[in-house]
């Protein structure tokens, strides 16, 4: 699936959920399902700045594909992180660098999350994009 197909899939999943508490239940569920990151990877250089909870992001590049694993000590944050990983992980750096991320706005996350949580989510997205942009630039050399 392309990045946009995954985004559309998430949007329709959220459309099926009724009120925001249900959406939270779903995000929490995603958080529980995301495998925990190996403790040895939870280092300070993998910490994302700008979160009230801690978020670790690890990038792995092999066979031309950029794969992300991530974790958080807070469950809602972990669920959100899981959504970003689902959308962006496993594509080429070029695809990730050029992707336009619209699902966050479409499902209304930005308006419903507390500002600190939304900022944390955006910091994470920025960091993922940074990895991709750096690798894409390298590939062009």
């Amino acid at each position, binding site marked *: 699936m392309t990045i946009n197909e995954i985004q559309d899939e998430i949007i329709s999943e959220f459309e099926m959920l009724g009120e925001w508490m249900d959406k939270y239940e779903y995000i*929490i569920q995603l958080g529980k399902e995301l495998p925990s990151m190996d403790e040895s990877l939870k280092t300070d250089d993998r910490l994302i700045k700008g979160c009230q909870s801690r978020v670790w992001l690890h990038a792995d590049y092999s066979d031309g594909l950029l794969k992300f694993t991530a974790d958080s000590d807070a*469950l809602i944050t972990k669920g959100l992180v899981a959504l970003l990983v689902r959308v962006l992980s496993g594509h080429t750096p070029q695809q990730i660098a050029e992707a336009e991320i619209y699902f966050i706005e479409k499902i209304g996350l930005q308006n419903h999350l507390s500002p600190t949580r939304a900022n944390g989510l955006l910091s994470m997205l920025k960091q993922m994009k940074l990895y991709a942009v750096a690798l894409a630039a390298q590939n062009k050399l």
Partner: protein
Amino acid sequence: MENGTAHTPLLKNIAQVRQLFPILQSSVYGKPLVYFDNGATTQKPLQVIEAMDTYYRETNSNVHRGVHYLSGKATDAFEAVRKKVQRFLNAAQEHEIIYTSGTTAAINLVASSFGKKYVLPGDNIIISSIEHHANIVPWQMMAEERGASLKIIPMLPNGDLDMAAYESYLDDKVKLVAVNYVSNALGTVNPIEKIIELAHRNEIPVLIDAAQAVQHMPVDVQQLDVDFLVFSGHKMYGPTGIGVLYGKEKYLDAMPPFMGGGEMIQTVTFEKTTYQKLPFKFEAGTPAIAEVIGLGAAIDFIESVGIEAINRYETELLAYLIEALKSIPGLRFVGEPEKRAGVVSFLIGQHHPFDVGEILDKQGIAVRTGHHCAEPLMRIFNVPGTVRASVALYNTKEEVDVLVRGLRRAADMLG
């Protein structure tokens, strides 16, 4: 209200009190607002909002300098609040009341100005391990500048201060003791009478951070014999941007000005400036006049209800809150001080406080989550932060019940 006849009975009719706070009538996410973040800032009663509105409509002018009618009127109103604050704290003299922008600014003023006058290399300043960053960082900055060190009073496991350790720190190297009256993170009410008495035995002055105290209990600076006491307007039903530094005349007189500018000078030449007398020496620039007026209205409001009545009501509410929280499986208190005021900090199981706070928020319930500007303290407890519920005189037992139901739901969802 204005005539002050509605003393204690007001709190017997809590619905009537709540009517005085416009924001308490509002809803968030379609649910009635339940506001338990009063330790961060309290909501404002109509009389505070209206006092500031009226000031801008009818009185607005700069203070202490105009020859014209409005300036005189503004100055009178501005100085009348100083008298009101003096009475509120039972300070001996009006000019011992210095307006600042808040508790933080007041502590920075004392740290900088007292430091310059009294602190030498090798000296010590005592603070405690349960302080807000505002009562840590200014002292660190000053100590670094003056070549002095900080001594930290340790905490007992329940969140009370280790008074034996404190006593052992007091020697002639200590130039000042700065502690809070009530901990914003744990709710501990510190034995400040004892803290002051022990310091004074060694001729050491004491600064009390009363930001979490003046809205909950009577504070009498002469009875306490405290040397400096600071608080903010916005945590006691007043506006943001205004706070108070109370200081004994003998110290304030001896200390150099903190900021230079207009209003604080007597004569200025390019060679030498002489400073105004107290309190103006410490009030450079145009002050927050409307906010001062708002603070005056907030004191009127508190006095119309009666601080003793507020204290009784909130103590009962807090006890009810603590009992209700105990019914939640897996809930543990962070800090169980012997004497508590205003706030309760807790965690549920292994759930991150941020998650709990966000699910409460979606149910219309406002609490604070995080480290509460007390990172060193959170490190001692080895927690990433806590959920903190803090009460004000308008909170009700019904709201406590809503909070408890909300917490149960959060715990269920986070499973």
